[in-house]
């Protein structure tokens, strides 16, 4: 069964550093997402991506964040200058045409900012 994969599983970085979180979505998916989950809290939407452009973003997704699908398979989330409050699990997700309520999530990347 195809799965969403994410790398790295855990990323430790210093405040102010740039990080890139990587995802390989399921190949026939067309819509892609990033969510984050601060420890013990609910999952929060960051951004959705379709047809090589951002289709929607939340108030969390400010100028420090960017997404890219550079080669048709990888989907990346970049945080330009990390802050302590960016520490969280970051999940990539995707779905096929129309089934937005049934999103397939990756295992997540735990980002720790020190």
């Amino acid at each position, binding site marked *: 069964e195809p799965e969403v994969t994410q790398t790295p599983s855990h990323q430790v970085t210093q405040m102010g550093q740039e990080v890139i979180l990587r995802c390989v979505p399921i190949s026939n998916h067309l819509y892609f*997402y990033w969510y984050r989950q601060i420890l013990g809290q609910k*999952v929060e939407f960051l951004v959705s991506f379709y047809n090589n452009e951002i*289709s*929607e973003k*939340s108030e969390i997704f400010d100028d420090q964040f960017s997404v890219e699908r550079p080669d048709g398979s990888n989907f990346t989330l970049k945080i330009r200058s990390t802050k302590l409050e960016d520490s969280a699990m970051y999940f990539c997700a995707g779905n096929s045409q129309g089934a*937005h*309520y*049934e*999103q397939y999530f990756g*295992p997540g990347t735990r980002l720790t900012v020190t």
Partner: protein
Amino acid sequence: GESVGLHLPTLSVQEGDNSIINCAYSNSASDYFIWYKQESGKGPQFIIDIRSNMDKRQGQRVTVLLNKTVKHLSLQIAATQPGDSAVYFCAENRKTSGSRLTFGEGTQLTVNP
């Protein structure tokens, strides 16, 4: 404000019993309500959805009930098994909000053998 939330943060049941996990929502504009399961160390996993014009939907061992009058959603798990132990989130999707999912706080279900 708009929110999707849960009544209880934890639920403990005996193996073989039925579990009921509840969720309240405040916005009537949702088009779909969805239940996700998150096992420790994993990403959320889709369980079942219900369209806002329905009041009941059944899956394999799971039933979702939607009461729009009181803005309440529940997930019933029949014959709960140890493998059902996880955090359960309700979520909603609105066509006017595109494809984003808005998640509630989560209920930790523990199944005791």
